[in-house]
């Protein structure tokens, strides 16, 4: 994750100026403009020419497209915000073309990672793209909105698969390099490491689906784009929900600027995040956690378990620390992002683990995979057995979460591992519910049982990380075997 101390300091300085100097009614605009600049600035350099300029621009284009498709069907609500939406469009256009002027700056002063394409060409292409969008929006307005939205979701899934599957993304990179006159033979799957895309895709799908079910509130273009690209949550979440995010956004004009309580809370959150990420996680990264290299070099079962535990802790502290920083930064700007972790390694069953690990992703998967799939299977005539429905729904949900991290066999197996784990836990708890309730009257036995369940759950989660961490199926399988003493 490219968030380092320097960028954190920049964010914090911007936040102080924003809260202290800016008139309340300009805060919303400042978040849009600041976040737009930030997504160009945070994008790390990419080898294919212009990619580190084009991809952030494509993020903006996707956000605008998402807004066009999710506008409420009634005409009235469209007209009231029309003027502001036009202004937003102009602002985004000026910013995108303005970023191309980084081309003429010395590398040290550039906001983009490498030299962007010519501003004139950029402007022409963006205007063409804008025309195309407006035309398709006109056509879409006449079509059945449900279908158009399904098409939008499908489009996002296709782009996601193309970028997250190594073979496909290499092919795209080859094509890109051919177009820009670079050597296509050098194309690699990491060529198009599009910053924030996984999160952007899931936010977009959430709004498209919620428009279909009528849950999405009417949003202005400014609100919608800010929700999609809000800088503190852009790199690695949390995945907020649009209706919650805009509540905070709409309250910004009346927010107390330099509120000591808010700044204090944010400061503590950021400090806690810094400690978790840069002290604990980064120390564990110094040889105390499992990697593809030391997995192959380990010489004993015990040593391998220690490394695996080191990795489990490192992953948690890295991600939870990052989330603390994102939430703290969000607070500085007046947006309270949702929590993402709730002491996951202390839970005593796999279901509560998933209610406390990467919570915004697991809720997303529950809303858009698990519940709709379970419901539609429950509605089938004849109705399949509930056991089968649960199995199918759990596996579909967890493999979606797995593949969201990258489309590979190891992530698939990791998803399957947890899908089966959740299924088994449900079968178990359905059958032992009465027994478990009666356990409440025997405090000592209950304590012992909780301790035992916690231990089993933790081993299950930690073993799962082998598939999550090691990208190569053979190495992951060999390491997994070695943890049980096989294959030394």
């Amino acid at each position, binding site marked *: 994750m490219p968030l380092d101390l320097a960028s954190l300091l920049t964010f914090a300085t911007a936040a102080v100026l924003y809260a202290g100097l800016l008139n309340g009614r300009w805060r919303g605009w400042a978040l849009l403009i600041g976040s737009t600049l930030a997504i160009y600035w945070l994008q790390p350099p990419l080898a294919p020419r212009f990619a580190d300029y084009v991809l952030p621009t494509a993020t903006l284009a996707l956000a605008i497209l998402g807004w066009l498709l999710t506008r409420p069907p009634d005409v009235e609500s469209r007209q009231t915000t029309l003027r502001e939406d036009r202004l937003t469009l102009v602002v985004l256009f000026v910013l995108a073309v303005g970023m191309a002027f980084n081309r003429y700056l010395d590398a040290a002063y550039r906001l983009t990672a490498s030299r962007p394409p010519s501003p004139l060409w950029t402007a022409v292409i963006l205007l063409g793209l804008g025309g195309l969008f407006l035309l398709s929006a006109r056509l879409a307005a006449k079509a059945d909105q449900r279908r158009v939205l399904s098409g939008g979701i499908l489009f996002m899934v296709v782009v996601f698969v193309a970028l997250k599957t190594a073979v496909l993304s290499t092919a795209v990179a080859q094509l890109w390099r051919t177009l820009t006159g670079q050597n296509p033979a050098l194309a690699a799957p990491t060529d198009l490491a599009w910053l924030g895309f996984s999160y952007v895709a899931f936010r977009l799908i959430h709004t498209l689906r*919620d428009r279909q*079910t*009528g*849950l999405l509130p009417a949003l202005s273009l400014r609100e919608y784009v800010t929700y999609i690209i809000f800088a503190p949550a852009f790199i690695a979440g949390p995945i907020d*929900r649009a209706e919650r995010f805009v509540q905070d956004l709409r309250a910004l004009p009346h927010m107390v600027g330099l509120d000591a309580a808010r700044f204090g809370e944010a400061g503590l959150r950021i400090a806690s995040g810094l400690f978790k990420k840069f002290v604990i996680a980064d120390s564990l990264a110094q040889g105390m956690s499992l990697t593809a290299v030391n997995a192959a070099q380990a010489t004993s079962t015990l040593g391998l378990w220690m490394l695996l535990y080191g990795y489990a802790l490192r992953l948690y502290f890295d991600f939870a620390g990052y989330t603390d920083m994102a939430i703290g930064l969000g607070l500085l700007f007046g947006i309270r992002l949702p929590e993402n972790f709730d002491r996951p390694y202390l839970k005593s069953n796999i*279901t509560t683990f998933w209610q406390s690990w990467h919570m915004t992703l697991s*809720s997303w998967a*529950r*809303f*858009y995979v*698990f*519940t*709709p799939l*379970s*419901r539609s299977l*429950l*509605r089938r005539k004849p109705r399949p057995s*509930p056991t089968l*429905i*649960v199995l199918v*729904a759990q596996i579909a949900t967890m493999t979606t979460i797995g593949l969201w991290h990258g489309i590979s066999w190891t992530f698939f197996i990791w998803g399957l591992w947890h899908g089966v784990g959740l299924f088994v836990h*449900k079968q178990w*708890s*359905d059958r032992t*519910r*009465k027994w*478990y309730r009666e356990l409440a009257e025997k405090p000592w036995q209950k304590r012992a049982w909780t301790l035992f369940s916690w231990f089993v759950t933790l081993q299950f989660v930690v073993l799962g990380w082998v598939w999550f961490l090691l990208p190569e199926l053979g190495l992951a399988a060999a390491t997994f075997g070695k943890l049980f003493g096989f294959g030394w």
Partner: protein
Amino acid sequence: MNEEQTIREKLRAFITRELIRDESYNLGDDEGIVTGGLMDSFSLAEFGVYVEDEFNIYIPDSDLTVEKLDTLNQMVARIQRDLGA
């Protein structure tokens, strides 16, 4: 019985019979059904389908959550709200 009580008793019967699968269980009005470990996310989906069939109300997927539907009181209030609307 008034409307509210009818809804409440229908739900209580459905939940203890189909979801908790223990009809002898004495389910309280304000008892956390999901947080208390009596029901899970899948049961919430089953609840959604039941409400659709029984009351002709569609509760969207993102409203089938612990926060919104953890107790009988919350469920009854939700159904009454949708019936009234």
